[in-house]
């Protein structure tokens, strides 16, 4: 029924596309369909969108080419994967050999009081192998006793004894890190853009993010945590101080309640 004198509010194109794609809830769908039954303008727009969408599908098919044979491609994938694993293992063996040599040099130099060789060896050791207090087992799922939620693009954990640490290792220079305090009880790290190829290691009260490429990491620190901090490359960048975020990094921006670090802008 048309209400004379009162302009009809039409359905947005976005809602019509969502209806076309089956993305509306049952209640919303019913509301829109009821409106369409009474609005020739929106009905015409709906038909137009349906036709545009169908024509788009037809047009796209012009671009399609046959895919390479699946068996050959699958074998190539497995071969490449094996090659990279071998290369990583070989690199690890070399590092272990270097550690052994350094260990011997360190022990030998430790006998000389005040020796700079000793300090050099200790510094190099720390850079090759993380110190025991930061060693975290490599896992793709949560270890026993850790309440973790894992998705392909992020993880969330509960604080342990009220504490949370988010540690970023090997971040790409083009990575952006956005931190905020959230009212949820969990610490969460979500990756978007190219950062989705990051690996996550989880331990009680700790999330390690390794090798995030260019993209954005969104970090939520729970307000209820007694202590929360973010480290990047082993250096403290931010701590949660009550309801505030205290920045310790060389360079950071703020956007509302969010603190933003751009890795490439941090001076060494």
């Amino acid at each position, binding site marked *: 029924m048309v209400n004379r004198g009162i302009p009809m509010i039409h359905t947005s*194109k976005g809602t019509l596309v*969502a209806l076309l*794609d089956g993305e509306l809830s049952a209640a919303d769908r019913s509301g829109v369909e009821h409106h369409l039954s009474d609005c020739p303008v929106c009905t015409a727009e709906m038909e137009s969108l349906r036709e545009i969408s169908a024509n788009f599908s037809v047009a796209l098919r012009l671009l399609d080419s046959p895919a390479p044979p699946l068996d050959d*491609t699958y074998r190539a*994938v497995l071969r490449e994967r094996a090659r990279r694993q071998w290369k990583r293992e070989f690199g690890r063996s070399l590092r272990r050999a270097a550690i052994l040599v350094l260990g011997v040099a360190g022990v030998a130099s430790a006998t000389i009081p005040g020796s700079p060789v000793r300090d050099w060896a200790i510094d190099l050791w720390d850079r090759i192998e993380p110190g025991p207090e930061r060693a975290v087992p490599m896992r793709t799922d949560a270890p026993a006793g850790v309440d973790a939620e894992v*998705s392909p693009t992020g993880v969330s954990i509960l604080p342990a004894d009220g504490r949370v640490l988010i540690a970023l290792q090997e971040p790409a220079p083009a990575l952006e890190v956005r931190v905020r305090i959230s009212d949820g009880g969990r610490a969460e790290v979500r990756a*978007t853009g190219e950062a*989705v190829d990051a690996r996550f290691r989880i331990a009680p009260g700790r999330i390690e993010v390794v090798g995030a*490429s260019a993209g954005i990491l969104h970090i939520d620190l729970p307000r209820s945590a007694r202590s929360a901090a973010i480290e990047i490359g082993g250096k403290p960048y931010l701590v949660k101080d009550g309801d505030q975020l205290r920045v310790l990094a060389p360079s950071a921006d703020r956007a509302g309640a969010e603190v933003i670090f751009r890795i490439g802008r941090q001076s060494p």
Partner: protein
Amino acid sequence: MDVDTLFRRLYPPLFRYLNRLTGEPDTAADIAQEAFVRLLGRPMTEKDARPWLFTVATNLVRDGARQRTRRRRVMAASPTAVPGPRTSPRADETVERGEGIERVRMALDHLSPRDRQMLLMRQEGFRYREIADVVGIAPTSVGTLLARALHRFKEVYGEQRDSDDTHV
């Protein structure tokens, strides 16, 4: 689901998506293969692997996008081969199909990379929430952006067809 089955189910749509995105079957095959190499070793269900693969693959496309744009400009500037008198009788159809492909490609190129990605993911049956997660926008924005992108595609594609018709 074992890796072999996952690969057979997800590789064809990933290749199709990448081929449509890049216009280059060889590049699409290389990137699809690379995405699967990176997937191996990460235990995932098919439900999680699908958006992950498409995200990683799209990022790889973006990494090489500048090189491909240069290459396509060079190819477009080259004269199209004119069929001689001894060519197959279906040559006209081939030329017309080639022009059709070029029209679709140019219309897609007029979209922003984000809109292009969203439309192509929609074609592969991704839900709005999945598209939003991959692209990095709110799920409530997906419908509006898709509607605009569809209209934009239609405008540019329609203009080119009209322009080609008037030159016949």
